[in-house]
């Protein structure tokens, strides 16, 4: 079985700074993988490379969907999304002046076809497609538990709801691979627990593979099948939560070296 996402020796330089140094990573089918590391380790840069926002200096990124492998190097962001990879953002990037429902509808963009001409004609097919988009978006809002707020303006939602809306919007692109950038940031313990259940539920329901960046260790340890650890742009460890917990390199990276050790 080929992994859904396969990243091999990915390197990203910004001028003289090496933000990512030969990072290798794999995410299998229906697997939840966490990427952790101290601030500035290059986790978000990694996401930006994988989703085509940055152009990596070297390395390969392959996405396998329905047994067809696509190289993502040189592809544009919207093409990668169309192939079946969606993401959320660390600093929430909702369309803040649009309604909750419209945000999700925008996510359906790559799965719908209506062009300018059909917009002007508004024939039956266009209207049906539009109604389907509305209903599908509403269903997704239900999945993440935002259906009551569907007609609110996105920026009026509380922080935790905005994060969930980002997930719903990403799901609207019908992904096989979902990248979550700190989904639990700014959430209280209750919300975090709900989020954990939500991610598991989504994985089962939509057959998703999930790669998430997260700082909340209890969530990472209880949710993920495998964990990758990065420091200063380089991968330093990978393994199951139990292995990572006892790995001395990881402890050093997080807590620093103690002098009397």
């Amino acid at each position, binding site marked *: 079985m080929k992994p859904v996402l396969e990243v091999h020796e990915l390197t990203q330089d910004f001028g003289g700074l090496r933000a990512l140094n030969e990072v290798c990573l794999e995410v299998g089918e229906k697997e939840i993988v966490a990427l952790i590391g101290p601030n500035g380790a290059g986790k978000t840069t990694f996401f930006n490379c994988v989703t085509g926002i940055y152009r990596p200096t070297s390395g390969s990124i392959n996405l396998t969907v329905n047994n067809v492998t696509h190289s993502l190097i040189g592809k544009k962001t919207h093409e990668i999304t169309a192939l079946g990879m969606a993401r959320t953002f660390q600093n929430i990037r909702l*369309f803040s002046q649009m309604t909750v429902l419209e945000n999700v509808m925008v996510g359906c963009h*790559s799965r719908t076809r209506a062009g*300018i001409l059909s*917009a002007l004609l508004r024939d039956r097919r266009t209207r049906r497609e539009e109604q389907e988009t509305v209903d599908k978006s509403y269903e997704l809002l239900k999945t993440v538990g935002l259906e009551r707020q569907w007609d609110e303006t996105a920026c009026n939602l509380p922080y935790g709801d905005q994060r969930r809306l980002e997930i719903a919007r990403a799901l609207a692109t019908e992904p096989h691979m979902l990248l979550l950038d700190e989904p639990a940031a700014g959430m209280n313990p209750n919300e975090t627990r709900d989020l954990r259940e939500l991610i598991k539920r989504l994985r089962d329901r939509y057959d998703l593979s999930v790669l998430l960046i997260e700082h909340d260790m209890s969530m990472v340890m209880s949710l993920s099948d495998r964990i990758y650890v990065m420091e200063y742009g380089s991968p330093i460890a990978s393994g199951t939560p139990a292995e990572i917990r006892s790995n001395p390199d990881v402890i050093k990276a997080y807590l620093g070296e103690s002098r009397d050790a």
Partner: protein
Amino acid sequence: MKRIVHALVAAVWFMVLCSPIMGLQIQPDKSVVFLWKRLAALGVGIFFASLLWQWYFSSQRASVSLRMPAAVTSAIGLFKQKKTRRAGLGILLVFMLLIPFLPVIGSIYQISILISALIYVMLALGLNIVVGLAGQLVLGYAAFYAIGAYTYALLTTYFGFGFWICLPIGGVMTILFGLALGFPVLRLRGDYLAIVTLGFGEIVRLMLLNWVSITGGSHGISNIPKPGLFGIDMDIQQATVYLYYLCVAAVIVAIVIISRLKNSRVGLALQALREDEIASEAMGINLTRVKLAAFALSSAWAGFAGVFFAAKTSFVNPASFTFMESAMMLSMVVLGGMGSITGVTLGALILILVPEYLRAFADYRMLLFGLVMVLMMIFRPQGLITGERRKYHVTALDGKGEAA
């Protein structure tokens, strides 16, 4: 006491500021007369106006005053219901169609004012696509207007093409120019885009001004024919009325097309682009295509408006397409409320008709106009009509009644 001091300071400050304009008068023999009385009157006026202003804002009504008056809100609420809205629009349309037959406002002079107002409505609606919906600040929109007008003017003088052939050609020409401008500026946004489009506007104007052998330079092109109607001869009154009806039709078509576009998948993508480029790209929107579409669709309306303008004035020269025009169109969009079709239409009508009908106040016309703009920016900086959003019908909610 503090307020009185504040008002005094404001009064003195205004007197100082306005003294060169209002307080000095140069006589024919080049001696200067000081008009103290006028300055004093100004000071007293400002003093009381300032007191009034402070009283208005200090009292509890401040929060109330910032909202629309109740009558307006309820009228808007009434307008939102489908039935009353249809009826209202119907009455408006009938009124528009009857205008040429009414006394006083049915005169040629009044109708040509209305024609130019309608042309500006078309321009503002077009600019609204790229500025209001897609959020790309374009400051050279008058260039497209000019291209439309000159397309008609040149084709009719050199090849004798008529209005009806030139209307689509004008649209196509501006779409081509819109794409030509769109390609290099794909990566730019905000201020940088504004500067490039400003430059584009000036390039087009200067080209028209200096390419004397073809465009006639600042003398412009005259004797542009009015639109024909199956070869029927019309006197000037009839021709004007006919053009007026054409403009009404064109504006209605523009409103229908643009509102359909706004509510479509493409329109949604444009609005997403306005909110966040990176996020919309990550949602699978092809930025290149959507941005170019915005430029092309928007400039087409300027092309049509340009052809109508050339037909109306039967004379074009580069002076009609200065940066002031672009700024005016942008103000219409901003004043009306970015993205709102009703708002932008109102904005255009207000900005053209108010200065026109303020001619009675001759000297103070621009002063009043400026005052209206300043007040507008204080009380409704987001534009006349905002928060206009589409109602979606969710099938799953059918059984539960209308949830809001």
